[in-house]
């Protein structure tokens, strides 16, 4: 069996001492930022990216991946104990998780969240291993036209499935694409939007864009809101009762399935998965009135879903080289820095890296179970660190992180600018996530558009004539059409406001 052979290869890489170590570091840091509200995985990945320059590619990517799914575990702790989402994907866990904590069932809620996440992580790791090779084979036959259409689909999906206003999200994508092509044009050597500054001739560094929009801007917004944190100290017994267990396991199964599917979709990932799972649990429940008052399913479903979604969102990245959310956009950046061109060839050219990373996800999930359950008291204590002491440290890590990428003070200054822009965007109700996706895809999209049109002698119909490309575009338009239907629009709004 090919799959077993590949997994064997993967585990032999992932269980190497160095890789286990960095997997653990990633999982620990992920849990830490997951527990601490006010700092998300995007900013953390951007901050820690420079430290991975000195590592070989495999441990570097293993660590970065660990941060992302580790954050999903940690986020639930804060949601349950403090009624604050430690991570945006844990927003819905607050609703029932915190109610359970108030009833003295905090330990049980934490345990269900962790076990559900672990189950979801295991299933979706298998799914990645099984689904990636065939997908990558399809992707190998892609030409420039297919890639362009794929990116159109990816960006459309990212907008449709994200929350907030559609037209604004599209505008943010165009703005991101425009910012992405700042720098020297590869074909003609023309300097574009550089204002004659040599610092900009290589383009704007995506680390500083992510750091400004997701790090600095979020800190500013957090500082505006006064904090009212109350840690419910009583965790209670960790092990859930038989009755709770019976209620939880079907929800875990449903959450895992839903999350795994939504994670693969462009724009999907942990956040969407958890919202959708909560809505689903409420729909299928025979006693929906219990939701909002400490329903076990309301914790089990979304927590499994967000972890499944976090993991399967690696599928488009690893097989197609297309990021489905900002975290994956940063992973692309990390791979590029390591000299790896993300895409279908990674699997065949660097099987150790590819399978090692997948196997490490399972190893990481197993570690997280240990990190989260027996060590829960430690994380709770961390929650007592006041934000006024935390945010200057985060700011410094951002500054040092940006500076260490290129030793450029110009880029540190630019981070302040992007922090300011990010603040404006948030104040105007514009989500920054589509912008960063556009930013990463801008140069790729232009390149493939140009190449496709040169090959077709300038005939734009090429995108409709090649079957795969046409299919991708049709799906993109269909997605758009569905969203514009009034009926669907309403459910979308409901799904995100709940």
């Amino acid at each position, binding site marked *: 069996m090919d799959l077993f052979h590949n997994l064997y290869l993967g585990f032999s890489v992932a269980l190497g001492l160095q890789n286990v170590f960095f997997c653990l570091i990633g999982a620990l840091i992920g849990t830490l930022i997951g527990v601490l509200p006010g700092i998300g995985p995007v900013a953390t990945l951007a901050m820690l990216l420079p430290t991975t320059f000195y590592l070989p590619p495999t441990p570097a990517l293993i660590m970065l991946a660990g941060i992302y799914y580790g954050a999903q575990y940690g986020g639930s702790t804060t949601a349950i104990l403090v009624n604050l989402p430690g991570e945006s994907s844990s927003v819905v866990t607050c609703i029932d998780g915190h109610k359970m904590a108030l009833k003295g069932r905090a330990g049980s809620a934490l345990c269900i969240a962790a076990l559900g996440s672990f189950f979801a992580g295991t299933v979706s790791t298998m799914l990645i291993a099984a689904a990636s090779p065939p997908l990558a084979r399809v992707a190998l036959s892609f030409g420039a036209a297919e890639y362009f259409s794929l990116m159109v689909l990816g960006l459309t999906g990212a907008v449709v499935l994200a929350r907030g206003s559609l037209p604004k999200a599209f505008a943010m994508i165009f703005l991101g694409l425009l910012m992405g092509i700042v720098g020297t044009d590869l074909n003609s050597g023309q300097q574009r*939007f550089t204002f004659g500054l040599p610092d900009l001739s290589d383009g704007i560094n995506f680390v500083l864009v992510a750091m400004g929009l997701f790090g600095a801007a979020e800190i500013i917004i957090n*500082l505006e809101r*006064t904090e009212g944190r109350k840690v419910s100290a009583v965790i209670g017994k960790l092990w859930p009762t038989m009755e709770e267990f019976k209620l939880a396991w079907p929800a875990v199964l449903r959450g895992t399935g839903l999350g795994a599917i939504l994670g693969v979709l462009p724009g999907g990932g942990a956040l969407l998965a958890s919202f959708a799972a909560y809505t689903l649990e409420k729909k299928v429940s025979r006693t929906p009135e219990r939701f909002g008052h400490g329903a076990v399913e309301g914790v089990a479903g979304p927590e499994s879903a967000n972890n499944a979604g976090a993991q399967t969102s690696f599928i488009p990245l690893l097989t197609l080289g297309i990021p489905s959310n900002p975290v994956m956009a940063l992973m692309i950046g990390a791979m590029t820095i390591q000299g790896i061109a993300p895409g279908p060839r990674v699997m065949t050219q660097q099987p150790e890296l590819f399978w090692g990373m997948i196997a490490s996800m399972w190893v990481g999930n197993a570690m997280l179970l240990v990190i989260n359950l027996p060590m829960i008291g430690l994380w709770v204590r961390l929650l007592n660190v006041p934000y*006024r002491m935390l945010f200057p440290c985060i700011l*410094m890590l951002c500054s*040092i992180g940006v500076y*260490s990428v290129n030793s450029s003070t110009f880029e540190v200054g630019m981070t302040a600018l992007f922090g300011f822009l990010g603040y404006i965007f948030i104040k105007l109700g514009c989500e920054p996530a589509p912008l960063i996706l556009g930013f990463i895809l801008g140069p790729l999209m232009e390149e493939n558009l140009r190449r496709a049109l040169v090959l077709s002698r*300038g005939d734009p119909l090429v995108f409709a004539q090649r079957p795969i490309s046409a299919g991708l575009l049709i799906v993109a338009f269909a997605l758009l059409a569905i969203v514009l239907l009034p009926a669907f629009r309403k459910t979308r709004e409901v799904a995100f406001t709940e």
Partner: protein
Amino acid sequence: MRMRFHWNQDTVAGLMFVGWGLVALWIARDYPVGTALRMGPGYFPMMLSWCLIVLGAGIAIKGTAIEGEPLERWYFKPLIAVCASFLAFALLIERAGLPAATIASMVVGAFGGPEFRLREQIILAVCFAVVSVFVFIHALGLPMDIWPHF
């Protein structure tokens, strides 16, 4: 019934997008556009700029017609403190070294917090500076100075 003109998040966001598009179009005015077959460096930017302008105008016009989300109040203290913190680091890191830059920009950033306690922040900053010298310069080997040079 008279149509009322609304200023809300959408109106301003739309105008902002139009602004970005116009500025980009103006900067890119001299870039060779070329044809679809042989695209010049100006082709893609021009396309994007026009998309931004049209979309932005649509958002703004629709925004004026509906009630929409009201504009939020701006809080300048954290905004300025956070941006100034980055700028302080940028200005100091190559002249004054990592510890000095760290302490200065942390204290500047801390002004943006809900309550500012000078002593606490200075102690925190000094501790952070010591740790970061060890972690970033000694352990990770980042090329940064420890002491100022004149």
